[in-house]
């Protein structure tokens, strides 16, 4: 590519970064403003930060349990979807099954469903059908992990397919010639080679699960409530507690940031969906 002065790049990206960061910065500004200042003239800079909201949110035992639920549900769901998605992609990629392309397309249709109307059947199923004696799937972490598969599993399959397709079949065959079992081929030959793709799938499904609101709001009550549903508790008749909401939001960003940071370098290498094969 053409050589260019690095200064232009830096200036350009500083500008873009400013636009990208501003809403996030503003979230932070709201979180350190006392409620009484919120409806006065906005100031871009915070001169006298107010940490009261942070103390309140940190000290709230309910929010801590929501945070734990969120972490367990998103991580469980991301690991489940990535693993199952990988197996599914291996099957679709390596086996000559009839109708497999139709199955591949069908999986993604599960992500297209408008969520609002599916809440009623899901509620009924999870309270009346998917039960074990007294135990119900509703309001459980495992229930949410499974429900989130409806949008994350198709995504995982669609993101991983090109990656798995891109691993030359000759490698599998060579391993079989050496006497390896199918399980060994899948887990020890193909799986490691897909690592960048798996990392990206893991992080994106994790983020989608972490951020989901509507399903969690309806299908959890006490035991499995997540941080995003905790946010809605601060939309009250007597004024939305924007400061607290913003503070919780900042708290929800931190784990996401950490997870994102960990796999940042894999992201580009792994996000090859639909990309041409070299």
């Amino acid at each position: 590519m053409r050589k260019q002065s690095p200064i232009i790049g830096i200036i350009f990206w500083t500008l873009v970064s400013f636009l990208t960061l501003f809403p996030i910065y503003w979230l932070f500004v709201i979180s350190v403003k006392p409620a009484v200042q919120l409806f006065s003239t906005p100031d871009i800079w915070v001169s006298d930060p107010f940490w009261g909201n942070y103390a309140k949110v940190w000290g709230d035992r309910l929010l801590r349990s929501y945070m734990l639920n969120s972490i367990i549900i998103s991580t469980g769901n991301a690991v489940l979807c990535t693993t199952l998605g990988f197996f599914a992609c291996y099957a679709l990629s390596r086996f000559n099954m009839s109708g497999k392309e139709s199955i591949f397309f069908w999986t993604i249709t599960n992500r297209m469903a408008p969520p609002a109307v599916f809440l009623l059947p899901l509620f009924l199923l999870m309270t009346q059908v998917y039960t074990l004696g007294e135990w119900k799937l509703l309001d459980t972490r495992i229930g949410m992990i499974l429900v989130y598969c409806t949008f994350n599993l198709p995504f995982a399959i669609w993101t991983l397919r090109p990656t798995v397709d891109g691993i030359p079949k000759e490698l599998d065959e060579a391993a079989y010639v050496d006497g390896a079992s199918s399980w060994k081929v899948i887990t020890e030959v193909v799986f490691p080679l897909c690592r960048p793709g798996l990392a990206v799938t893991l992080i994106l499904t994790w983020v989608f699960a972490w951020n989901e609101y509507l399903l969690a709001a309806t299908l959890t009550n006490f035991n499995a409530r997540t941080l995003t549903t905790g946010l809605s508790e601060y939309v009250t008749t007597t004024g939305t507690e924007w400061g607290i909401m913003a503070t919780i939001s900042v708290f929800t960003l931190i784990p996401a940031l950490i997870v994102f940071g960990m796999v940042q370098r894999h992201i580009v290498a792994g996000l090859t969906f639909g990309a041409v094969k070299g």
Partner: protein
Amino acid sequence: MRIISLMGASALALAAGTVIAFAGGHAEFWKKAAEPFQGVTIRGVTESSPPSLYIREVLAPEFEALTGIRVDVETTSWDQMFDKGIKDMEAGTGIYDMVYIEQDIIYSYLARDFLTNLSGFLADNPELQAPTYDEANFTTFADYFKDDDGNLYGVPMEAFLKVYLYRKDLFADPDIQAAFKAKAGRDLVPATTHAEYAEIAQFFTDYGQENDLKLWGTTAQAHTGHVASWYEYFESVAPTFGVYNWGIDAGNNFSASTANGGTMNGPEAVAAMEWWLSMRDIAPPEAPASTWTEVGTTFGAGRAAQGLVYGENAGWIAADETKSLVVGKVGVALPPLADGVMAAAESGDGYIGYYDGGAFGMPHSSKNKAATALFLQYIGQNEVQPDWAVAAPRVTNTATYDDPKVVAFNEELGGYYDLIKDKGYLFAGAPAYPFHAQVREATAPIFYQILLGDLSPQDGLDQMAAAAEATLSELGYRQ
């Protein structure tokens, strides 16, 4: 005394956790009655509001310490709260032992027989009847939760008036008074008619502009995509022009249009709409994006000189320094009225504004009815009311008005409690319609078009009346 905000409540709960101060006496009764229910957890769902949070953070732990019955209260947003309660009761799942019943949804729930008759339940189970609980203790607001035979279906826990708030400090400012007198030829006092209100509003909006202040003459809950605006019009503005019950005549085949005998698109309704829109136009610029939340915040930020504000907000606006800039500067009055409306309200034929609130009811699907009945009685006792009324300004029991704490708080609130006590009977809750949300949602999109100016008030109200009638026919109420 200060209002505790949402999170303040949890601090209070911590304090309550260390020293359980049980207000009611008769501890023996509670312990004995609760004996069979040790280890039981009862669960409720409610809207996240200060009174509900007080239950979650203060009353529930107190009750658990006293009786050994655990109470979990799920607080969530307004629309989620309805949906979750309805889904549970509709399917008969039994997730919730208590549901929050807003006054406007009780008729839908009663029509579907979702709720347990509390009066009957306690009569059938005398061993559960607490000596400190009596339905007669409640204010008349409890009547909204009774059936035709006087049986109670919910223990009231919130009751508010939508009142006319004004800025005492501005109304009492001698310079402003003089300027107003010069302009209007009369003294600056809270308005009693729509014309006066409009004149004062215009005066303050001009005053704000001339002096480069962030001040306008009125608030308006006029969101163009949220039902808050629909509610302000039908609950708080139309009745002051003599249009009651949304202009639907329940006794006349649920007619809404004037052609069929309703009043939704009658001349009074049109006049109310035109007046309200003209107020919206001189309200702060955020009015068309304001729900009840933003109206409270606008007033609390000192951006409006007067306005119709939900009583839930009157408390923190008048007394909470962490959220409001106008603490101690707020006066309350009755809404401005058209001729004849006061007389109609006095005689019981009409009303002058919205009496809002909610109760806790017990769904039929509950699996812990006895334990729940104990808790519902617990929160209905006179003894727990005063602290609750100070923490979250609501009064549901008559005796609460006379408590010294509440009397003192009343002063801070500019006499708001006096207004509820003395004038509460002039206000009314939502009409007794089991199709509340359905007709609201059917007409709201047309209503927003009026707000946007896409439809004239007359055309819009005509269309709304037609839409309401169509929906009522569809649902089978209108023949």
